[in-house]
């Protein structure tokens, strides 16, 4: 068995009385796409914080390609190949959409600036933002800000891509385009963890689905099976998956 590209070992995290992670284990294989669902406040975003280095776990280890990165800075992890989008978009509002990608590429992918230009435009094209390349990022609508989150994460040239709710608010047509994009990224060799409430888009794009609840993964397996499992029905009682 080959080594997972990313692994969490016995990760625990609490905020005061709220336990968001109770000794969580997780392994992401190279090329794999993993989906995470769970009720609001389950700790999904916090888990991304722990992987990307913005949140320190109380205990446990984060491994990237087998080496311990639990104490590595977010910048270092990004340069190693962990790219992340933010659920609440955090665009660099004072610069253009294009520059948002250039800076991510120059630092996250360690590209010389001139060599980054072409790939940044290509990414904008793929994410549907090319027409807005010269716009100040601060002028974008929420939907475009979400697109920018994905585009900027891609500009860092990630080996592992962490997507936090990028499908919300998209039309059916746009959602299909997103699913296509993510499939194409996977064919390009990127491993993905995707947190998403838009379950049908998620299920169409991933290999494996995990359900986070009360600080632990209560289900893990084939997406279609997990979605129909009684545990999931119980958590989402009354909330029909919008598939």
């Amino acid at each position: 068995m080959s080594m997972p590209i990313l692994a969490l070992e016995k990760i625990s995290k609490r905020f005061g009385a709220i336990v968001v992670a109770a000794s969580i284990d997780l392994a992401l294989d190279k090329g794999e796409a993993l989906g995470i669902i769970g009720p609001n406040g389950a700790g999904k975003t916090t888990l991304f914080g722990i992987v990307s280095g913005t949140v320190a776990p109380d205990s446990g280890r984060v491994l990237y390609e087998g080496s311990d990165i639990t104490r590595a800075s977010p910048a270092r992890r990004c340069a190693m190949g962990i790219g992340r989008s933010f659920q609440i978009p955090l665009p660099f509002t004072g610069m253009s959409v294009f520059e948002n990608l250039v800076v991510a590429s120059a630092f996250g992918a360690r590209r010389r600036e001139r060599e980054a230009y072409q790939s940044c435009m290509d990414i904008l094209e793929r994410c549907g933002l090319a027409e807005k390349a010269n716009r100040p990022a601060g002028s974008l609508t929420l939907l475009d800000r979400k697109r920018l989150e994905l585009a900027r994460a891609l500009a860092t040239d990630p080996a592992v891509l962490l997507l936090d709710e990028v499908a919300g608010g998209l039309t059916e047509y746009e959602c299909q385009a997103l699913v296509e994009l993510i499939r194409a990224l996977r064919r390009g060799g990127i491993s993905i963890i995707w947190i998403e409430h838009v379950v049908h888009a998620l299920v169409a794009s991933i290999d494996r689905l995990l359900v986070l609840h009360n600080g632990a993964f209560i289900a893990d397996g084939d997406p279609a099976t997990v979605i129909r499992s009684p545990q999931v029905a119980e958590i989402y009682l009354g909330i029909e998956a919008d598939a």
Partner: protein
Amino acid sequence: MSDSKRVRVVFESRASRIALVLFALGVIALAAAPYWGGRDDLQLLAEIYAYAALASLWNLLAGYAGLVSVGQQAYVGLGAYLLFALAILLGLSPLWALPLAGIISGLVAMPVAGLVFRLRGHYFAIGTWIVAEVFRLAASQVSLLGGGSGTSLPASMIIAIAPSRALRDAVEYWVALALALTILVAIVLLLRSRYGLALKAIRDSEVAARCSGIDVMRTKVLVYIVTACGTAMVGALIFLQRLRISPDAAFSVNDWTAFVIFITVIGGIGRIEGPIIGTIIFFVLRQTLADLGTLYLMMLGLVAIAVMLTAPKGVWGLIAERFGFSVFPLERRVILDDGTARK
């Protein structure tokens, strides 16, 4: 994507090119000042350049890197003292001592950064001020340079700059102009580089910046050191022109920080052009109000308050927002090869 068009990236626009040409013409006219101006004019202009440079550097530090230092007089004084030390103790020509003073000050700034960067927010500001006080006290202990009462540049050193007084005035003037321009160009280039983008990114969202691969601390330390180096060279030049140095003058918080902050804030913090406009306003005020004594300082305070209330982004902020215009644009614009500029 196979059908993607070639990407070209530019900073300038038509308006900014015209402005740049006008700026260059202005610089040429100023460079010729030794031929049209008197000794007083040259000295006043050199002082203006020094303040424009100090304010531009402080603007880089506080406006772009968010490092609100009230202790940059530490480097003005350090640079000045280094120049005197290198000239008096080692017999180095002042014109050589000037860049050397900058480099050494940049080196000194490294361990100082290690100290003050442990402090956050207001404490950082206070820390920088304490460092400057420590530097001042240290300078007053150096008896070889006159201790607390200071010292003068020996006549032999003054003659080493240029044999005649008129030529010396011209040389010092050109050095002042060249130094200010070099600092301005260096700041523009820095802000146009990836580090400029990193500074903006950090300002907009530190978390997202870090997760995009930017080492926040490293970037800020880099700016701190570059600023220290430039500030020290300006300090060295100011006291080379004065020919006399003392700890109180060289490490004056009033002259090298209060006025500089005033200039930057009224001109427009966080914009390249701001400190330049601010310097012009400051000197106009000073030349017209200087006879008023203390009242002059109170007037400066009133102007600062008025500007902060009516135009918090400074005078240049007003201009830039009204006309969407800058002389030194820092934004990249994508132009595709088929000639279409994207909106």
